């Protein structure tokens, strides 16, 4: 039953693998970005899972509550989310510029065009 108890870690690993697989296998640059975001998000889940304290509640001061989850991973992940948003924005804007310069966002077609000159 230990396998089921650690389900959030398994979800994180699964998402990370799916994300990495999309980055590697997909030829479309936008899909690559989607994969990359997924990979980053899996780490968010990993961190949030680390912060869980058994029987703890959300880390907001409430009267009569003794046990809270660890707020530090949440704070760290807030920063990582911002980094993720910035990365995605930069990546998407690069893809738009690539699409304007090459007329395509498919990796193999871009390679063909670069080889030819």
């Amino acid at each position: 039953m230990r396998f089921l108890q650690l389900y959030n870690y398994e979800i994180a690993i699964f998402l990370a693998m799916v994300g990495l697989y999309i980055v590697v296998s997909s030829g479309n640059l936008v899909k690559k970005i989607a994969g990359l975001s997924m990979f980053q998000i899996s780490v968010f889940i990993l961190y949030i899972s680390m912060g869980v304290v058994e029987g703890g509640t959300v880390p907001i001061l409430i009267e009569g509550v003794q046990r809270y989850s660890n707020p530090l991973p949440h704070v760290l992940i807030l920063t990582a989310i911002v980094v993720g948003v910035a990365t995605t924005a930069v990546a998407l804007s690069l893809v738009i510029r690539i699409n304007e310069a090459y007329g395509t966002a498919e990796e193999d077609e871009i390679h063909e065009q670069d080889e030819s000159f």
Partner: protein
Amino acid sequence: MLSVLANDLPALQVVVPLVSAPLCLILARWPRIVWLLCLAASWTSLAIAIELLDQVLSGGTISYAMGGWAAPWGIEYRIDAVNAYVILIVTGIASVVMPYANQSVAKEIPADRVPLFYALLMLCLTGLLGMTITGDAFNVFVFLEISSLSMYGLISMGRDRRALTSAFQYLVMGTIGGTFILVGIGFLYVVTGTLNMADLAMRLPEVTQLRTLHTGFAFLVVGIGLKLAMFPLHLWLPNAYAYAPSTATAFIAATATKVAVYALLRFVFTVIGPVIAYQDLPFGEIAKVLAVLGLVTGSFVAIFQENVKRMLAYSSVAQIGYILLGIGLATVMGLTASMLHLFNHALIKGALFMAVGCLFYRTRSVRLDDLRGIGRKMPWSFGAFVIAGLSLIGVPLTAGFVSKWYLVQASLEVGQWPLAVLVLGGSLLAIIYIWRVVEIAWFGSPSTRAAEATEAPLGLLIPTWILVLANLYFGTHTGLTVGVANLAARTLAEGLR
């Protein structure tokens, strides 16, 4: 007023470039003022870095509590001989590149994007300095992403459309690397409950046998390896260097990988500790094998490049191999060689890329065919390239010789003479690819582009020659570099054996 700030130099080291970045955007209407501001900011950073190094050398480690929160709880900036030395490299290169930027950027970047370029450059400097100065593991990740994101922007501003694809490629690999580092730091946090590096170093010995720790270390090495272009993870580097604007290439090539090497050293030696890294885990062997592979393949591939910037980029992969080799040896001598080569390679590659930028300024091309005969048209620019090239090869009396000398000695010291032979072999390959450029650019009959070229303006030549002369100076006056590098190496090696 200045005396009030005297104790706050560690904060100002990062804040000065950080503040100048948004100011660049606000002052965007006056590009000249933007440039002067960046110049002032980078020179101030250099002054702070020199003062910090001086304080560390005379008074030992400096600790600075951000926001007044004491060390294990708040973010601590912690400066010892190792990072004071790396900060000096980064700010030194920034101070030389910034005067060079004025004319080079005006020619290569569309006028409306110039302030943005400077803002990104300052953000990149902020990120690199922050990564180096901080004593908090998570802070490393944040500053790493600041520098990386600004680097993607800087690279994409190149004129060639391939700059866009190479920036994208770097973004994908860089983000994967950054996320790996994030996972690694998370694993360290989960076994210790702290993010402060000194605190981590204290608590990790209690949990050395945990697999979580070993996995976290592996994630960190792979993630940082991506950032420092360790051999099989270097694929982003050649294109990124080749198509970025000249100023950006000179700055990034001379600093970014160095800071990544520093991060690796910091995590291996200070945080994880050499006992786990070298004895429980085979980090030393892996580093040595990858270093040798990178050294040989990087140099070989460089020989066949038609684009001079790409050639120098592959040579960077090889040079990182030298640095990594010293780390893999895990002796004080090896680390001294690595620290020395951090400094010297920054000087060499900075000078080489700036010289190539001078050639590009006139010819609008860095293809070898187009540079045929350029040497006689632009003797000063090309002279700078040749002398820096000699330093890259490791000819005596140049800076490159000093670090290779130490590396060879370090290999012989532990009785691994094949490594010494490989180091010398790498230099032989460097002779081939540098000579190839010299032969074509000096002895070839001028191409159409070269025929029209005239010598580059003084605004580009003076900064380039400052770095070239620094190569010669530090090749003969080794007191400062070897002294500090040795002290830094001994600081790192405290936990060794």
